[in-house]
């Protein structure tokens, strides 16, 4: 049995004597007798470290680690530099808690301050918080920053990740905020004409949530949307893929009011979906509406530079039911990881990753087109794109995925019987791309015979 209790029986007896008790049970007198588990919980006996490790290793062995992965759709396989793992594995970074005591926590506070700065440089926004749970809750908190008593209708583009959309809808529903979906054009982009008309019709319009690139990988035409949204005195909330921001026009440059996104591509392993990292940044005039922790620079009593948790008057432990969100501590260690990742990659490294992503995704799209799948050549995309199986072909997506699976490749995500959403990053090689294309070509060729 391992409960990690360091005390000995002798010490326990001494402690009881000091307290003035005969048994530890006496200390539980406040619990009504009828709810006490007289026999203890009905669980297996405790296991040794070796047994626990072997159970977990066996379970981990039942998961399939694909040699090659061309699936993204919200979670991305990237190379994680060794220095990042080494840094975030330091015991003190793991076992510290929220830096409530600044005199003992300058290192943690500074790491957050540096992370906030990096997020602002990446997004082109003025201020960033210290993190929220994930990209989906970041979007939800982002749109809720924009509502007020008269503006309680949130527009969500139909091109955003449906998983994110569902979370935004859950959160809005909880506060009786109405959500409206903006239609998608035939080529997978936000329908700007419809958006304009819908905004004009809706007096309670609070904000638009749109993603760049969108769920289908397409780079949206944000400029006109910004004009429509701000023309109607609404706010623009942009969901961004962080690696793409090394290359693409930033939410700051588009004039977005709030920028959010999923930070997982910044050095966090896939880990079956979590823990990940929601980043949130805003224009200065929205600063006091940002939820979550924020670190600020100040001076100590001797006039030396110091970092502290700041603007806490927004938060639940001060404002209680009047707080904008109930969020408190969340993903600090993930933010530390993202910060270390951006530091290791540096300006050039980030651009290089973005360059790999686009070059490889475009090469993959070209090869898959040659192999007989349809892609939309006219819409610009970053590192994801959708292929369609031509009308009349007897091949299905599951046929393609099965054939790839046999080669230890996780193919694109099936959106419907004929559509797959593909992704490529720097970890994919040209050879892997050719293998995928050859496999697809064989399938399509066979079907044509």
């Amino acid at each position, binding site marked *: *049995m*391992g409960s990690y209790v360091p005390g000995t029986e002798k010490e*326990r007896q001494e402690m009881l004597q000091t*307290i003035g008790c005969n048994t530890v049970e006496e200390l*539980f007198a406040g619990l*009504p007798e009828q709810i006490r588990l007289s026999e203890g*919980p009905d669980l297996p006996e*405790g296991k040794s470290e070796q*047994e626990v490790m072997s159970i977990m290793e066996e*379970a981990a062995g039942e*998961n*399939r680690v*694909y040699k090659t992965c061309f699936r993204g759709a*919200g979670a991305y396989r990237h*190379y994680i530099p060794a220095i990042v793992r080494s840094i975030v594995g330091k015991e*003190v*970074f793991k076992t*510290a*808690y929220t*830096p409530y*005591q600044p005199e*003992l926590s300058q*290192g*943690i506070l*500074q*790491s957050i301050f540096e992370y906030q700065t990096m997020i602002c440089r990446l997004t*082109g926004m003025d201020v960033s918080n210290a993190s929220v*749970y*994930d990209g*989906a809750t970041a979007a939800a908190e982002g749109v809720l920053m924009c509502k007020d008593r008269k503006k309680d209708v949130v527009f969500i583009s139909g091109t955003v990740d449906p998983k994110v959309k569902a*979370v935004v809808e859950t959160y809005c529903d909880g506060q*009786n905020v109405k959500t409206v979906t903006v239609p998608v054009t035939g080529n997978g982009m936000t329908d700007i004409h419809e958006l304009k008309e819908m905004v004009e019709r809706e007096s309670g319009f609070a904000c638009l949530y749109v993603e760049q690139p969108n769920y289908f990988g397409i780079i949206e035409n944000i400029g006109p949307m910004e004009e429509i949204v701000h023309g109607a005195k609404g706010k623009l909330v942009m969901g961004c893929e962080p690696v793409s*921001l090394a290359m*693409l026009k930033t939410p700051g440059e588009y004039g977005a009011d709030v920028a959010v996104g999923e930070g997982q591509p910044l050095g966090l392993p*896939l*880990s*079956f979906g*979590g*823990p990940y990292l929601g980043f949130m940044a805003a224009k200065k005039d929205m600063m006091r509406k940002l939820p979550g922790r*924020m670190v*600020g*620079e*100040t*001076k100590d009593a001797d006039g030396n530079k*110091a970092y502290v948790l*700041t603007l806490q008057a927004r*938060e*639940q432990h001060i404002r209680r039911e009047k707080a904008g969100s*109930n*969020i*408190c501590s969340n993903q*600090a*260690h993930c933010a*530390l990881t993202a910060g*270390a990742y951006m*530091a290791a*990659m540096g300006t*050039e490294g*980030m651009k290089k990753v973005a360059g790999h992503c686009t070059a490889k995704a475009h090469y993959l799209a070209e090869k898959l087109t040659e192999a007989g799948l349809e892609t939309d050549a006219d819409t*610009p995309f970053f590192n994801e794109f959708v292929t369609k199986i031509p009308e009349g072909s007897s091949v299905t997506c599951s046929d393609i995925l099965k054939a790839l699976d046999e080669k230890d490749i996780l193919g694109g995500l099936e959106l419907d019987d004929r559509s797959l959403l593909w992704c490529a990053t720097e970890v994919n090689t040209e050879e892997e791309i050719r293998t995928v294309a050859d496999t697809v070509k064989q399938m399509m060729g066979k079907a044509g015979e």
Partner: protein
Amino acid sequence: MKTIFEKSVQGKYQDIIPKCTLPEVTFPQELTRSAALELLEISETEMSRHYNQLAQRAYGVSDGMYPLGSCTMKYNPAVNEEVAALKGLTDIHPQQPASTVQGWLRILKIGEDYLKEVTGMDAVTFQPAAGAHGEYAGIRLIREYHMKNGDDKRTKVIVPDSAHGTNPATAAMCGYEVVSVPSDSEGGVDVEELSKVLGNDVAALMLTNPNTLGISDKNILEITEMVHEAGGLCYYDGANLNAILGIARPGDMGFDVMHMNLHKTFSTPHGGGGPGSGAVACKNILKGFLPGIKIEEDEEGMTMGLYEETMGPIGLYYGNVAVAARAIAYMLTLGKEGMVAVAKNAVLNANYMKTLLEKDYHIPYNEGCMHEFVISAEDLKKETGITAMDIAKSMIDNGVHPPTVYFPLIVHEALMFEPTETETKESLDRVSQILLDIRKEAYTDPQKLHEAPRKGQIRRPDEVGAARNPILVFEDGKDL
């Protein structure tokens, strides 16, 4: 120390990924950044030293006692870190076919079964990423329940005045009006006051038990029954579950839904403020509304689906599952007898430390404390001018992390201690002696305490100035 940006020099880089040999893709100018990215440029040597310096300016459980009340800063076992780092757990895409994630589903199922047993509940979801997130899920479940029953006139949630700030904030975030009930003289819920606010407009009561004073409410069964009789449901805030682990169960106390802070009770590293895991457990009446994945087993193996009437997702995927995996490894280690040992030793340690301090320090709610206790420095402040904050900062000068201060709000000049079961008698003795010495110094040398800390990384910071003139990002060339 300098920021990482002040160490950045143009031209420095780390050679991490290979050169891309495929043709570069260019986008029309209107789609690309007009101002080129300027993040930072630093060598691996300098980066390694920078973060080492940051690490030296931090304090973790690995450095010593960390008695933050209601945060349960216990030792984080090393094996759990190795578990979470297994390649078969880390390199798994969340949208792989269920047949290729059988191990993950099996681990989560083990976790569900253990948690159902120790909570006395019928179902568990791991989707909530933190305690506050779990509270949100729990109160939304209650809302779904009332809505489904056509009971849409229930607009209020009752929260005791000793509750964590997240409780009222959560209720408000779920669209409820918050009604606060006072504590009685013993620190429990004032039952008479509770009966006055109960009615057919009450959706739920949110309760932490033992509460933030460390006291288990002696009327707990009566309280949950009263709420149920009024047609409301009972929410258990699991922040203090460590005190009763394996001894008593929220489900048996009459609670319908609860969250756990797996990072507290089940010892996953707090990470400088997350990631945690706020798993939610509930009774059958709420099960169908759960968010996250429903894991079942058939002839083919483990399957993952959604609950029939799910309230909708509250996270991108299935929660902080790598945190849950650590907690589940810990549950396997504890087992039947280990769970009980955790609670017993946590309560013993807290009571021992309280005994060492109670002759000198005022403990306003002193009867029936379990895993934590709250000192009030109000008398000391009157006599010497020394505040709870001065005591906390003086602890830093003695190399110990302070407790939670100025919480719960119902105790003035509060210092809230939770030593946890993984502290030794030696460290409890040592820290208690430090506190007793500080109290003496309050009378002999108050100025020293007002000026503490002197041996911290910094002196006391100007927090008012920080909030008045917020500097949230580093700007080159800016001198404060």
